[in-house]
């Protein structure tokens, strides 16, 4: 190859904090279980295959504090095991049913069953219920760079008038990473790529060296950015901003023309949870008779029709190899033309939700593996992490200011601030103001009052999560999202009103501490603007 493009692949592994031990089964907890079984465990297996085959690679994964908390929570760990056991039981039934009734689906039924057994075995025997250990080992071996993000994945531009809240989101994101992985992070995934000018000052204060931004943040910069999205820039304070490459990202991300839309790939929306008779499936969906995805999906995308053809793994595998080759070809060609104009090798920064691979795009993890293997075969050795890139080329970067931007619809804040969710900000902002007030009026409390105030700080942070306004915007699980924002704010008000009377509601406190256990070592004084 005449030109060796550098590729920084960054995956954002994040889920909102959803944990309801007060119910025997809770629908939204499946978000976590599906992500572990369909994305995180298969990703770890793929990385370990590459590692044992001595294939060089470097990838970056941001693991959000809410996700890390759930992955290390014993209640959810136990529930994941139960989830997998049900999944395996369904798989065994499916293999039997398909053998007799639908042999065209047998191969996939057996595949899912084998994968589920492997998942459970990896989870229990290899990782002892804590899959973060798997990521840590790969980081130690130099294959992964792990990064953090905002404490509850808040969309930060809408809190820029509240520096204590911004600081709390960043500081707790960094602290949580330190507690989980034993060292400070260098990278910070900006939730939803949400950036506003001078946000980097808070990041720098907490020792962050780099963050990623939306593609348009460079073309819309007030400064004359030299290399567009093809090189990171240093912000005026020295923290590096890595802009996403929209064109390269779209090869995968586009829902119309991206690789995942190939007709040979598995159709996500055809699932036996919806297709099979209620009598057969009811034990494996939600009570009472709420049909949900089970993960057993046998059809190929085929086209815009309901007349789907059965999924064939061998055909899909062939397309995966072709798509990996096409991806590398496109990047190489682009790099060649860019190098002529830039007189430097470009860097392609691509950021994706980790759950895209495996969960949404079934073949995504195999595709990633193929991209890395083919790249190694061609001697490209292209994969870098932002930190390795900065170590090598940090001194050559231009200084420029990225523009206000996000990766959401319209490129700014419209997703998180529209008619469906704007109502929440007057309440969340007020809670932040009141939390600041409490931190000043009742600084350095001990015992019950300290616990009470710490819980108030947790509730404010949980209300700030970007997931709730996003869900309201998308009009998906709106009832749950609305309830969650309201609950955290109402919970906060319990503390505020009681503290104004110099009282502690212990019944509330004990229950709230059990429900919202995140950030066990939080110090509410973090909201004190005088500190």
């Amino acid at each position, binding site marked *: 190859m005449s030109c060796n493009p550098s590729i920084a692949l960054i995956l954002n592994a994040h889920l909102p904090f959803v944990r309801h031990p007060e119910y025997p089964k809770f629908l939204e907890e499946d978000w976590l279980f599906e992500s572990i079984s369909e994305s995180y465990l298969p990703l770890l297996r793929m990385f370990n295959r590459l590692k044992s085959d001595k294939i060089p690679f470097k990838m970056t994964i941001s693991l959000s504090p809410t996700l890390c908390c759930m992955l290390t929570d014993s209640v959810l760990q136990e529930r994941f095991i139960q989830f997998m056991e049900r999944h395996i039981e369904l798989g065994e039934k499916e293999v039997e049913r398909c053998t007799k009734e639908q042999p065209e689906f047998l191969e996939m039924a057996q595949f899912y069953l084998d994968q589920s057994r492997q998942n459970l075995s990896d989870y229990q025997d290899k990782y002892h219920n804590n899959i973060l250990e798997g990521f840590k080992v790969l980081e130690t071996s130099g294959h992964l760079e792990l990064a953090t993000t905002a404490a509850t994945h808040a969309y930060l531009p809408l809190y820029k008038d509240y520096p204590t809240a911004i600081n709390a989101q960043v500081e707790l994101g960094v602290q949580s990473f330190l507690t989980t992985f034993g060292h400070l992070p260098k990278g910070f995934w900006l939730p939803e790529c949400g950036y506003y000018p001078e946000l980097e000052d808070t990041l720098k204060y907490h020792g962050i060296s780099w963050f990623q931004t939306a593609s348009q943040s460079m*073309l819309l910069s007030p400064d004359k950015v*030299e290399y567009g999205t093809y090189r990171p820039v240093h912000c005026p304070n020295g923290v590096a901003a890595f802009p996403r490459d929209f064109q390269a990202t779209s090869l995968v991300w586009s829902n119309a023309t991206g690789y995942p839309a190939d007709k040979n790939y598995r159709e996500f*929306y055809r699932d036996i949870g919806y*297709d099979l008779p209620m009598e057969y499936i009811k034990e494996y969906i939600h009570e009472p008779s709420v049909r949900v995805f089970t993960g057993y999906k046998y059809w190929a995308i085929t086209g815009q029709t309901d007349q789907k053809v059965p999924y064939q793994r061998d055909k899909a595998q062939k397309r995966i190899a072709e798509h990996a080759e096409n991806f590398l070809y496109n990047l190489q060609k682009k790099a060649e033309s860019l190098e002529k104009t830039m007189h430097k090798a470009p860097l392609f920064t691509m950021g994706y939700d980790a759950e895209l691979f495996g969960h949404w795009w079934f073949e995504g993890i195999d595709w990633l593996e193929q991209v890395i293997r083919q790249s190694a075969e061609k001697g490209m050795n292209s994969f870098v992490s932002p930190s390795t890139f900065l170590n090598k080329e940090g001194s050559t970067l231009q200084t420029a200011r990225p523009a206000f931007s996000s990766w959401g*619809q319209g490129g700014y804040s419209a997703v998180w601030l529209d008619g469906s969710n704007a109502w929440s900000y*007057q309440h969340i902002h007020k809670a932040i103001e009141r939390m600041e007030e409490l931190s000043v009026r009742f600084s350095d409390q001990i015992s019950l009052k300290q616990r009470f105030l710490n819980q108030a700080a947790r509730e404010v942070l949980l209300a700030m999560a970007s997931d709730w306004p996003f869900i309201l915007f*998308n009009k998906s*699980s709106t009832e749950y999202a609305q309830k969650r924002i309201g609950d955290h*704010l109402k919970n906060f008000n319990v503390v505020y009103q009681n503290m104004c009377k110099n009282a502690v509601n212990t019944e509330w406190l004990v229950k709230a501490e059990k429900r919202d256990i995140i950030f066990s070592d939080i110090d509410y004084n973090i909201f004190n603007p005088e500190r």
Partner: protein
Amino acid sequence: MILINIDSLSTTELQYIAQQEQLDDWKSLDREELIDALEEAFGEQDDEVTSAQKGKVHRNRYCNSLTDYRGDQQKVNDLPGVEQLPENYLDTSIHLLQRDPQWAYAYWSLSTASQLMVFGEDGQQPSTLFLRVQQSNLSDGTVKTFDIEVSVSDHQWNINLPDTGCSYLVDLCWRDKKGNEMSLAQSKSIETYPAYWQEHLDDLIEDRDLYLTHFSALVTKEGDIVDNAVIRDLAQHLSKGVL
């Protein structure tokens, strides 16, 4: 997300969604009618989005309806001692949030004392509430203002930001029957910065290398431009209206 397409759903799935969305006649509808009815049910969208964007929004929603529908049986209970959130807070303040370079969102509240002062004890005092938007040019410091009249029942407003390169802040103001005006609260400011390349478009048009470096990354191989109004405007200028 990806691969989201209503046409891919089976008729059983469509019927299931229609049932959850409480469409009255879902049992009697054939496949095409179900799709039309669901598109209509999900289609009450913000008029600002383009039709192409609407298509994407719809598909996202079907995805999430299918994935996340939780039924009415499982509610999250309140913890003991919680009370409903107030509709408004009893202090006088106004906040301004930037939605994009063209629009901001303001919300405000009035304390009881402010309400008494503005509308009198019986609430009948003839007064006017309005928002005074102050626009300061960041390069030459010139200041312009414009007013938006609001009613006592309003607590939020979307405010157009006419120019980039400006700082904006909003005063919540009161005018009495004699025409005397007073600011009750002032927001913090927001800034809109002009993009360098917006002001140097000719350089991009004349230099193919510059164009390749700066603009091509924002267009897919199929020619779709990144979803951003400013970039679309730039593209219009660069293509002389062809795009």
